[in-house]
């Protein structure tokens, strides 16, 4: 929900540089069919495969690149690891540890609950207001991006805002990857008065430049 504008920005920049772009909503999210309660990471990863085929057909291209943010980035990497042929993958603040990600969401839920004017009941079946079954929680908790090294045929770029230890660990885990993965950090304190500017502008621009460089190489 919150990433729609950023992905639109990224798509616009890429299109301006001559790349056909397909952005889509996963099953059960945004305008796509289905309900969130029936969605799962496995289903969403399948959606990436379907989208890739659709893009190839619509744009009449043979090679594609993937770009995703947070869980979407991790799923994109999972799709590549499962055999999707992609020339490049741009990972925007990917979820590195699924269990850590769930803890972050739970913490965010607690903050939102505290900041609400009315008491918000907590449901074992929901997280941040969205249905999330126990089984799916367990699947997310098992996600470990470091254990999914990119294939050698795929350029991989990681673009992240928060300087987390996890990214250093990820860089170490993927250090043997050839060609070497790109890690670009965007400091959180670059301009504290205008935090949105960095997200709205710098990262989509950096991803666009990185993909364009790769395409031109």
């Amino acid at each position, binding site marked *: *929900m919150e990433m*729609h*504008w950023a992905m*639109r920005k990224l798509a616009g920049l890429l299109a301006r540089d001559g790349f056909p772009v397909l952005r889509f909503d996963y099953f059960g*999210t*945004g*305008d796509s*069919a289905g*309900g*969130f309660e029936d969605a799962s990471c496995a289903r969403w990863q399948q959606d990436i495969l379907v989208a890739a085929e659709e893009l190839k057909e619509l744009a009449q291209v043979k090679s594609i690149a993937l770009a995703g943010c947070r869980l979407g980035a991790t799923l994109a990497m999972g799709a590549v690891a499962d055999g999707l042929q992609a020339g490049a993958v741009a990972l925007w603040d990917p979820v590195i540890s699924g269990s850590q990600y769930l803890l972050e969401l739970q913490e965010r839920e607690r*903050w*939102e609950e*505290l*900041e*609400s*004017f*009315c*008491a*918000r*009941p907590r*449901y*074992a*079946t*929901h997280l*941040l*207001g*969205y*249905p999330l079954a126990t089984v799916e929680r367990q699947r997310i908790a098992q996600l470990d991006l470091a254990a999914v090294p990119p294939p050698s045929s795929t350029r991989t770029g990681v673009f992240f805002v928060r300087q987390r230890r996890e990214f250093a660990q990820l860089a170490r885990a993927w250090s043997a990857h050839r060609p070497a993965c790109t890690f670009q950090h965007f400091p959180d304190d670059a301009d*504290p*008065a*205008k*935090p949105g500017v960095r997200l709205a502008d710098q990262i989509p621009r950096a991803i666009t430049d990185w993909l364009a460089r790769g395409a031109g190489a």
Partner: protein
Amino acid sequence: MRERVVSFGNRLVGVLCEPELSVRVAGAPVLIVANIGMLHRPAPYRLYVELARRLAQRGVATLRFDVAGLGDSAPRNDALSDIEGAVADTRAAMQWLMEQKKGERFVLLGLCSGVDAAHTLAVVDERVTGAVFIDGYTYPTFKYHLREPLLKFFTLRRWLRRCARYVRQYHLGDLFQGQKAIYVRNYPSRVQLVADVETMLQRGKKLLFVYTSGIGHVFNYREQFFDMLAPARLEGRLELEYYYEADHLFSDPCQRERLWQRLESFVTTHWLPAGTPAAACSPNPREIG
């Protein structure tokens, strides 16, 4: 149910959700919804997506769209203000629906800032046959002022909220410091609002006002609505709901369900023939464990 992406007006984008021919109700109005704040058209927690699909099962079509500059719609290239632009875009939506022969009467629904365009058009546009305003305009009343300090100082939740906000501000800084207003609202005067509501009612429009405790700092009891519009006698002439357990964006799934059911009943009661059955696959209230 059939959903398709549509484009109309000056490169505006939306999704038209239509019922199957077998359940379509002739002459039923089309529901039009647009953005809440800066968010794109599905709305938080897919409020509008689920609503559109439920209404389609009942035979009513819904257009959810992005006003210029938001979601997938192109930015404005004229000098209209935010509210003028939203009104113009909603008019463009109605015009397009008429041209496509999808409907001639419309129900507008707005939440928070989305109320502005819905209100403006519901007053002046004859094609608008009903409107729903969620967490719309509020004005303080004597009883509000009596209750507010009590709620402010003697409610544990308010204290927790204040502490949480301070802690968050300390850690993250004031995110909005030094930024210009990103959306400017034209709040009507209280007198104007009374006149507008009277006009809408005299023109036979069906109105539903929903308030939540998510705006508890400006609206803190159900009858505040009637008190703030006194001396106009509005009781019984319009519909009012106060969802004390709901927050502003209906993050609680039970409250969402409650809202969806209320909106369904508002539409079916006023615009569908009595006894119109819900489609077999109409979702039932879900139990939440």
